[in-house]
């Protein structure tokens, strides 16, 4: 898991490894599972809206299929350039 920008600040961490249960099969499901675990995830996701996700360093939809060892990143809309 990677978090960036305002979401990273709200989480208090930029990276962590999680072992999600088998039924968590998408970034959206992963986010819901993290929120259900409580703090800091619940507060961080509530505070830093909207949130986008990337899977293995490519922008992904909420319902994209996860795999073992996936790199999932959550972040606010980008503001580069």
């Amino acid at each position, binding site marked *: 898991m*990677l978090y*960036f*920008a*305002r979401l*990273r600040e709200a989480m208090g961490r930029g990276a962590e490894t999680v072992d999600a249960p088998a039924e968590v099969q998408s970034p959206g499901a992963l986010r819901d599972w993290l929120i259900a675990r409580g703090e800091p995830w619940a507060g961080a996701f509530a505070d830093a809206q909207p949130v986008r996700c*990337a899977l293995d*360093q*490519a*922008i992904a939809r909420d319902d994209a299929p996860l795999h073992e060892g996936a790199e999932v*990143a959550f*972040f*606010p*809309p*980008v*503001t*580069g*350039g």
Partner: protein
Amino acid sequence: MTALEWQVRVQTGDFDPEAEAAALRGAAAGAVVTFTGVVREWSGDFDVAEIELEHYPGMTERVLGEIAAQAGERWPGIRAGVVHRYGALKPGERIVWVGVASAHRDAAFDACRYIVDCLKTQAPFWKRESGSRGARWVAARDSDEQALERWAASAAGEGGRPA
């Protein structure tokens, strides 16, 4: 445009727009169009003393490369370059450079605009401004998303800039 015909760099250090443009020019180029993005001193009513650009290492290079490759498919024959800085920057400093060289100017103008519009909504960078009023994360703009939608709509047509 093959992989050799676009160059993407993500770095903390400054770049020289003249040197980048010179590197881009080739024998076939009749036109070179470039864009340089610079840190603004005023952002709304917020005076900016410094900005911090956070990025997603690995994904930034990949996304910028994909955008350049898409431009190459949409405007065959161009050469493109992108340089994007990250880290702490002050007002007046250069943030990003985009250059496109082409035989004729239409493709150079359109492709340069396309690459800038795409990177503004797709490249994983986040700006944090700090000044006399404290610090805040810059919010993404609707107008940037709308620019992307116009390119998608015009792709159904002939690939040029939408009116």
